[in-house]
């Protein structure tokens, strides 16, 4: 995002807005991981507690999701500059 023509007040405002957006994004990521890892790992509802097998699966799934999304983020950042052919911004 090119904010070079933003006034000081505008940059300050955007920084605040972006910070809040990042928090909301983070909470949504948290929520998506729960849904995805629950769906992949939990298939036994004869008991209400997590079995140790399910717990291991959830931990691996979470760790892997974070590593995956960090790797996607890194590659995406490398490519990003030229990618927005249709952005109306």
């Amino acid at each position, binding site marked *: 995002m090119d904010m070079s023509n933003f006034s000081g007040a505008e940059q300050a*405002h955007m920084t*605040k*807005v972006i910070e*809040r*957006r*990042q*928090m*909301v*994004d*983070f*909470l*949504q990521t*948290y*929520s*998506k*991981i*729960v*849904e995805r*890892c*629950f*769906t992949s*790992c*939990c*298939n036994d*509802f*004869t*008991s*209400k*507690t*997590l079995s140790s097998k*399910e*717990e291991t699966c*959830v*931990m691996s799934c*979470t*760790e892997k999701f*974070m590593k995956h*999304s*960090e790797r*996607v*983020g890194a590659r*995406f950042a490398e490519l990003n500059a030229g990618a927005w052919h249709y952005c109306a911004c």
Partner: protein
Amino acid sequence: MSFFTGGASRAPAGGVNPEKIDAALTELDTITDFYNRMVASCHNKCIGQRYTDGELNTGESVCIDRCVYKFTEVQKKVGEALQKRQAANAGAMSGL
């Protein structure tokens, strides 16, 4: 979400602190999002695709109760894992 804060912080009205409102709304939206995903996930796990009548049968009811409990357990475990991660590499969280 922060529009409100943005607007209101320039024009606070009658003892309303926009930061507090904003934080409360974030909490509300977060809980709502979790609840909605729980409803969808437990529906997928517990409710059959054949709809012959509108009642939950015993198997489905028991499944739902356990599903909610287990979903909440997963939520705690994932939360703890993310907290550990965030403590380990503070600041490098967001992908953007």
